[in-house]
C-alpha cells in the first residue's frame, strides 16, 4: 500500500512534465498553475471546518525569468523524486537543496525556495511530501502526559511506552512521521490536551506537576508547530476525543500559532483538513488577560502592529472574539509573554491562572 502511494505520486508528478512538454509541441509558452498562497485566497471548508485555499490561481509562465527557472527546477525535482522512489531512498528537504548544487543553472538560490517548491508540488499533485520521499528538517516537539503510544522504531520493532511514566523530564519526542504505520495511540487517561508555545512554560507546568494534577496531556509547540506536531495533536483529538486548548504568549505571532493549530496555516492550507484541529480553543494569554491580570508588558513594535493589522483582514480571525481582542491589543499597544505570570510567583500559573481560565472555558467543574 505504501509502495502504491509513491508510484501514484510519481505518476502525478510526471503529468506536470508532460504538460510542459506538450506546450512546447503545441508552440505555447510552458506554464504551471497553482492556487494563490496568501490570506486573500483562503476559504472556510464547511465539511472539515478548516481553512483551505480558494479558487484564485497564479500562473507560472516561462515568459518570466524567475518562473522559467522555477519550471526548470520543477523538472529536476520530479526527476530526483522519481530516482529516489526507484532506488527506495528518501531525503530531507535540506538534502534536496544541497543536491540541487549539481543541477547547474537549476540549483535553488536558497532553501526557502526548495521547501516552497515541494509544497507547490504537494498542492498540484494532491499528495504529501512524504509521498515524494521528502521529509522535513524540523522535528516534532515534546509530549508529557498519561498517553500510551506504540511506535515502530527504525529496526521495525514495535515499542510501547507511556508518555508520563516511561519518559524523562523532556518528555516524548514526536517523530517526523506520525502516521498510523509508524505511530498508534494505545490508551489515554486524561481530560484534555494543553498545547504550549514556549519551552519555559512547558517546563514550568511539568515541574509543577500540572499534567497529573489537572489530568492533562502537555504538548510543547516549540513556536510555530511543525507539521508532525499539528498532526499528532489532531490525531489525539480525533481518536481520543480529548479537547485541545492552546496556551501561548499574548502577541500577534502567538495568535498565528493558534490559528495554524485550529484553523490551518496559510502555507499548508492544501492539507488543512489533515493538520488542523478545528475544535481547539485558545486559552491565553489574551489581550484581555493582560488587563485583567495586570501583567508586565512590552510596547508593540512596528512589526507587531503590522502583524495585528494584517490579522484584522485575515479571514481566519474574522469572528467577533478575535476582532475584539486584536483591536484591544492595538488600542493598548502592549504585549505580554506567558512567563510574565511569574510576576505573582512560580506557582501562580498552575494554582490560579490556568484553573481560572479553564473554569471560564467550561473545561473544569
Amino acid at each position, binding site marked *: 500500500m505504501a509502495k502504491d502511494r509513491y508510484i501514484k505520486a510519481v505518476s502525478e508528478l510526471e503529468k506536470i512534465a508532460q504538460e510542459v*512538454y506538450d506546450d512546447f509541441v503545441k508552440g505555447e509558452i510552458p506554464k504551471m498553475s497553482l492556487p494563490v498562497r496568501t490570506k486573500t485566497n483562503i476559504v472556510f471548508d464547511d465539511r472539515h471546518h478548516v481553512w483551505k485555499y480558494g479558487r484564485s490561481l497564479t500562473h507560472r509562465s516561462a515568459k518570466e525569468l524567475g518562473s522559467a527557472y522555477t519550471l*526548470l527546477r520543477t*523538472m529536476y525535482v520530479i526527476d530526483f523524486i522519481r530516482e529516489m522512489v526507484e532506488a527506495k531512498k528518501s531525503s530531507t528537504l535540506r538534502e534536496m537543496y544541497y543536491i540541487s548544487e549539481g543541477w547547474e543553472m537549476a540549483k535553488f538560490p536558497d532553501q526557502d525556495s526548495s521547501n516552497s517548491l515541494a509544497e507547490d508540488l504537494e498542492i498540484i499533485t494532491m499528495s504529501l511530501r512524504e509521498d515524494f520521499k521528502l521529509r522535513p528538517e524540523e522535528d516534532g516537539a515534546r509530549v508529557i502526559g498519561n498517553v500510551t503510544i506504540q511506535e515502530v522504531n527504525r529496526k521495525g520493532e514495535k515499542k510501547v511506552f507511556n508518555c508520563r511514566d516511561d519518559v524523562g523530564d523532556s518528555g516524548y519526542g514526536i517523530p517526523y512521521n506520525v502516521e498510523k504505520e509508524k505511530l498508534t495511540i494505545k490508551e489515554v487517561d486524561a481530560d484534555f490536551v494543553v498545547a504550549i508555545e514556549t519551552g519555559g512554560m512547558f517546563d514550568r507546568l511539568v515541574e509543577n506537576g500540572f499534567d497529573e494534577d489537572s489530568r492533562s496531556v502537555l504538548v510543547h509547540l516549540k513556536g510555530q508547530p511543525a507539521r508532525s506536531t499539528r498532526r499528532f495533536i489532531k490525531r489525539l483529538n480525533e481518536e481520543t476525543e480529548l479537547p485541545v486548548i492552546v496556551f501561548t504568549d499574548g502577541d500577534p505571532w502567538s495568535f498565528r500559532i493558534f490559528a495554524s493549530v485550529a484553523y490551518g496555516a496559510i502555507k499548508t492550507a492544501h492539507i488543512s483538513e489533515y493538520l488542523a484541529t478545528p475544535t481547539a480553543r485558545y486559552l491565553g494569554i489574551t489581550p484581555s488577560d493582560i488587563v485583567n491580570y495586570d501583567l508586565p508588558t512590552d510596547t508593540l513594535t512596528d512589526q507587531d502592529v503590522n502583524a495585528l493589522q494584517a490579522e484584522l483582514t485575515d479571514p481566519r480571525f474574522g469572528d467577533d472574539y478575535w476582532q475584539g481582542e486584536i483591536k484591544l491589543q492595538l488600542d493598548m499597544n502592549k504585549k505580554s509573554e506567558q512567563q510574565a505570570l511569574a510576576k505573582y510567583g512560580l506557582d501562580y500559573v498552575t494554582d490560579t491562572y490556568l484553573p481560572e481560565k479553564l473554569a471560564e472555558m467550561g473545561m473544569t467543574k
Partner: protein
Amino acid sequence: MANDNGTASELTGGIVAEPIANKLAADLKEISVAEFFERNKQILGFDSLHRSILTAVKEAVDNALDACEEAEILPDIDIKIEKGTTKDELVMTVEDNGPGIVKKQIENIFARLLYGSRFHAIRQARGQQGIGISAVVMYGQLTTGRPARVLSKIGPEMPAYEMDIYLDTKANRPEVVRSEAVHWDKDHGTRVTISLSAKYAKERRQSVFEYLKATAIVNPHAHITFLEPTGETYVFPRVTDKTPAKTESIKPHPLGIELGTLMKMAKATEAYRMTSFLIKEFSRISQRTAREVCRKADVDELLRPQDMNRVQAMRVLEAFNMVKIMAPPTDCLSPIGDSLMRKGLRKEIDTKFAHTVTRAPSVFAGHPFQVEVGIVYGGDISADAPVKILRYANRVPLLYQQGGCVITHAVEGIDWRPYGLEQRGGTGIPVGPAMLLVHVASTNVPFTSESKEAIADVPEIIDEVQLALRECARKLKAHINKKERLKKIAEKYEIIQKVLPRLAEKSASVIGKKVPPIDVVVTKIMNVVVIEDNTEHDVVDGKGITTVGIDVVNYTPKQRNITIACKVPVAELGKVDPKPSRREEGLVVWKVTKMEPTEKRHITLELVGLEKDAYEEAEVFFEGLKADQVIGAEPL
C-alpha cells in the same frame, strides 16, 4: 555675525564699486587693522585653525588661476603644506606658472589690503570672492610673526625677485624687509610662502584636499599638484588644453545699480550732461534710451551730472525700470562649458553616466549670470547616501553653508522620484548613486553673507538652476529607463537562450520523449523587435570617429517592417550602412523591411570630428510598430 559691524559688511559687499572701497579705506584708518581683523576673523575665513589653512590655500590658488586666465596660460599650480616650527603652525607654499608680477607691484599685492585691479572692473572673476591674499599675509604675520616670502618672475630674460614682506597694520602699507634679485629656473610665475597658525586634516569634508579636488573638476585645464604635510603627493592632472574664454569687463547695467552708487558715479564722471553720462558710464544705454530716461525722470538732458540731487537720482533709478533696456552683455561671463564640465567630472569620478547643461546667460537686477549643471550617475558613487552637491560660484567651490544656499534649495525643491532617485516625501536632498555639480557665474554673485559661502535665494537664479537640473534629470531618467530596458532584454535572452532549451530537454527526458522544438515558443516569449546599440570612439589621422552600431532583431512570430531613427549631433557623417532613407534635422532614418522571424539586421553610422565624450550614448527611435512591440528604443 554679519551685521554687528557695519564696516565689515561694506568691506566685502561693495568690493566691486570703487567709491565704496574709497569710503572703506577711509573708515579702516580709524581702527587698527589688526583689531578689525581680530573682530572679523569669521567673516574673513580664519575663525578656526582648520578653516584658516583652507582659506589661505583658496586665496592663493584663486589668485594663481585668475592670473593664468588673464594671461591665457595653462595653469600649473603646486601647493605644498608643511609643518612649521611650532605646534599648530603650518607653512603654505603656492607656486604658479602665471605671468608673474612686476617688481614694484609685488609688495602692494601681497601686503596691502584691498589692493588689486579687480575691485574696479565688473566681470566674472574668482578673486571677487575672497578677502584677498593680503589678508592671509596679515593673518600669518599676526599669528606667527613671520613675513610672507614672495618670488616672482615676469619673463625668461628677466630677473626673478624674492622679497620678505610685512604688512604695516597701522598704515595698511607694505614693509619690505628683504628684496633681492635671484636666479629662478622658470620662465615666469609666482611663488608665495606664508607661515600661519592652522591645522590640516585631510578627512574633513571641508578640507584643502576637497577644495582642490572640487577646483580641479571645474578647471580641467589646470594641472594641480598637492603635497600634504604627511609627505603624500596628489596630482590632479590637466585633461584639456583649452583655456576658458577670457572674460571682458563691462560697465554697470542700469538695472543693477543702487542709489548711492548712481550718485557717486555722477559725481565722478567726466561727462558734462546727463545723456552723455548715462551713455558713457552704463552698459546698454543708447542715445534714444538716455533721452527717454531723462524724460521719464523729468530731469533735464543738459543737467550736469555732478549737479544731480538725491530726488532726481531717485527718479532716474525709477525711470531705468520704466524704459526698455536690453539685458546686460553676457560676454563678461565665463561658463565652464559642457565638454569641459564632463571632462572634469569624469576625471575625478568614475561613473557610467554624465550629462551637463549650460543655460543661456540671464539677468537678475541688472547683473548678468549664467547657470551650468552637471550630473553623474552610477559607477563608484554610493547608492544609499544623499546625493552630493558640488556648488560653485565663478568657478570657486563653495564648501560651507550648504543648507543656506540657493543651489541646495533648488535641488531640494525638485521631486526627484519620477527621475529615478529616492527622496523622502518628494522634497529634500535626494538619495541615490548620483552627484550634482552646479555652477553659478555672475559679475555679482549674490552671496547670503560676507563669508561668501552660500548664494542667496534670488528667484531668477533658482528658476535657472531648476530648469537646468530638470533637464539633467530628464536625461538621467532616459538613461535609467534604457538601463532597465536593457536589463529586460537581457532577462528575455537568458530565458530563450539558457533556460528554455534546458527546460525542453529536461521535460522530454522525464517522460522519455525526444526533445521538442522551441522556436515558436521563443518568438512568443520575446514577441518584440529588439534594438540594441553601441557607440565606440576612435581617433584616425587625428580625427575623432564615433561609430554607432545598431542591431535590429525580429523576435516576433511574424514578418516585420520598422523605421529606425538615430539622433545625431551636428557632425560630418562618415560611412553609413545601409543607406539611410532620409536625413532631417539631427536625425538619420532607415527603413528596415521584410524581416523574417528571428532575422537580424545591422546598421552602422560614423560621425566624424567629434570628441570622445561629445556623443557617448546613441539615442535610437523607431516608427511603424507599437511601443510594446519594440524593446531598446523609444517611439519617434
